């Protein structure tokens, strides 16, 4: 290849002018993307820093200086109890239903309608929480009164149903049921995803052995999806812990620490307490409420992290 004349082509590749201009465009764009990423981290750091800074006075002041004359721990403990109680009750109700819903959509309903049914369940997640609250207080609450009376009569020996049953429906029982409806689509979405991913070869293997549909589900789908259902439950729990409006509207809170779900006296939850008291608070009371928000943040963070850890472990295991 002798005829290559490098002198006339010199610098062709190194066309600095246009190359340099391009690099400016690339640099600006990639820096903008990186800046967005950093902004988000800064925003999150900001959430933590501002909440800690504004919540700190609640920890440093003595009981006599704080509103209500209680130490912060004494103030937040019943609220944290109510938060965990409501969310746990909701999860206990929602998870079996969510698993059933997921199984129905992925393995029982005809494939033609499965997509539509899935969409209906997703619709539950799209409804604003204020509307769940109104529905809970005006519709579900009154409807639940006879059920709660029945529970008190027949199952009153269980502490949860000790009664006396509320006549208004503004109870932990109703609030928990509404929370259950709200987290059901979250849990069922996670379960649906993994149930539909159950390897075909496992399912067909079970059916080739002559298993009925339920035996196939029990042998392959449920074991395959177990850890995802657990992580979905944690995600749902995280949502229920932080949910504010439904509880704020429905629950008639008295500050009592009790497992009794159906009576008139109920513990409040952290989120509902903030929503109720914050608009009328000033001074140190605001700091105390922000500090309770910090506690709520911590509780949901731990729950969500646990859920992610389970998902991550499962992904690694595959």
């Amino acid at each position, binding site marked *: 290849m002798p005829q290559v004349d490098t002198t006339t082509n010199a610098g062709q590749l190194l066309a600095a002018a246009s190359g340099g201009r391009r690099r400016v465009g690339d640099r600006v*764009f990639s820096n903008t993307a990186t*800046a967005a990423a950093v902004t988000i981290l800064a925003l999150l750091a900001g959430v933590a820093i501002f909440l800690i800074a504004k919540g700190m006075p609640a920890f440093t002041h003595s009981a006599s200086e704080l509103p209500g004359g209680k130490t912060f721990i004494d103030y937040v403990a019943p609220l944290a109890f109510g938060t965990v109680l409501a969310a746990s009750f909701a999860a206990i109700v929602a998870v079996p239903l969510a698993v059933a819903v997921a199984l129905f959509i992925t393995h029982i309903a005809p494939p033609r309608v499965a997509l539509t049914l899935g969409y209906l369940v997703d619709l539950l997640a799209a409804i*604003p929480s204020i*509307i769940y609250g109104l529905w809970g207080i005006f519709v579900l609450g009154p409807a639940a009164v006879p059920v709660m009376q029945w529970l008190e009569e027949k199952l009153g020996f269980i502490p949860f149903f000790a009664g006396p049953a509320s006549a208004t429906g503004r109870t932990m029982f109703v609030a928990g049921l509404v929370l259950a409806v709200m987290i059901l689509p979250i849990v069922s979405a996670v379960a649906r995803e993994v149930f539909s991913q159950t390897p075909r070869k496992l399912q067909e293997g079970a059916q080739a052995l002559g298993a009925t549909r339920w035996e196939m589900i029990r042998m392959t789908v449920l074991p395959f999806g177990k850890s995802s259902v657990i992580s979905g439950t944690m995600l749902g729990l995280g949502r229920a812990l932080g949910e504010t409006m439904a509880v704020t509207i429905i629950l008639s809170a008295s500050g009592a620490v009790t497992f009794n779900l159906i009576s008139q006296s109920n513990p409040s939850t952290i989120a509902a307490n903030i929503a109720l008291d914050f608009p009328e608070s*000033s001074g140190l009371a605001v700091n105390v409420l*922000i500090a309770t928000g910090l506690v709520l*943040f911590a509780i949901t963070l731990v729950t969500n992290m646990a859920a992610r850890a389970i998902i991550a472990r499962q992904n690694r295991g595959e």
Partner: protein
Amino acid sequence: MSAISPHPGGALVSGGILPKWAPYGVFLGAAALSAAVLAAAGSFSIGLTLVFGVLLACVAIYSWSRAVEGPRRAVDRVVTMAIASAFALAMIPLASLLFEVAKRGLPGLSLEFITDDARGVINGGGAAHALVGTLVITGVATIISVPIGIMAAIYLTEYGGGKLRRALTFFVDVMTGIPSIVAGLFAYALFELFFGPGIRLGVMGSVALSVLMIPIVIRSAEEILKIVPNHLREAAYALGTPKWKTITKIVLPTAFAGLVTGVMIAIARIIGETAPLLVTTGVIDSINSDPFEGRMQNLAVYAYSEYRSPGVDKAASYERAWAAALLLIAIVMILNIVARMVYRRYKTEIR
């Protein structure tokens, strides 16, 4: 068939099988029977009929199937019926909620409800100020969240590597789990620093909503950018296209419908938020369209305050709360449906 089987009509159909209509027939029969018995006992109600109907149907289908098809099929039958009933049970709240919101909200909906505010009205007025507030607060939140969210998603899918990428992925997960009320408290704490205690502004609500919206936008944009095939990026690079132009002219247009859909669904998720606005934008009864000056209120907060602090005529206040709820649910549903339609209609076919 019978030629294969050594016992004609034997191995394959031994024990027989229930007719196709069996589960439905059994359920209807069981429900009718429980309705009749309950009516006879004088305590008929739809709820009780369904409860006893399902229980009775489970027992009946089990017995019948066990007699005809054997115990294993019988268990399968009863579990299938139980799961289907559980699904139906889970759908009851949705049906009831949509029905009740429509029934209770429709009477309160009128032209005045949308065009009037509640200024100086002792009892009555409309929700125009809340509609304006919803638009402004949500709009500003969208303006903040969409560029940051989509650029961050671009960072994750096109640029990111190493520590920052892993940190961002992790913290977006954390952010997804922030309770909405905590986002509100953050916005309050941030603005209090600059404007002093008790501050309430529309833009504070937007900042709070952005904390909730950004992770949703990032997640959906990331998903959609990931499915833009890599061979399209390579085709552009091979033409001598700089990376930023490959992203803006090839990747983003290919993903456009998906990005729009993601943003619309994110808007639908935050447009009905109440809690973070209670602590940031406050309540107000007249129209305010300036997010940087004075209180503001969205439809959800309007519905809440009509319920929480009703006027003299309690029923009228509740009616307005339901009308706002209906309006809100209609907006959310329309956003969701239009978002899905946009995706189905305009998504780029990639083979």
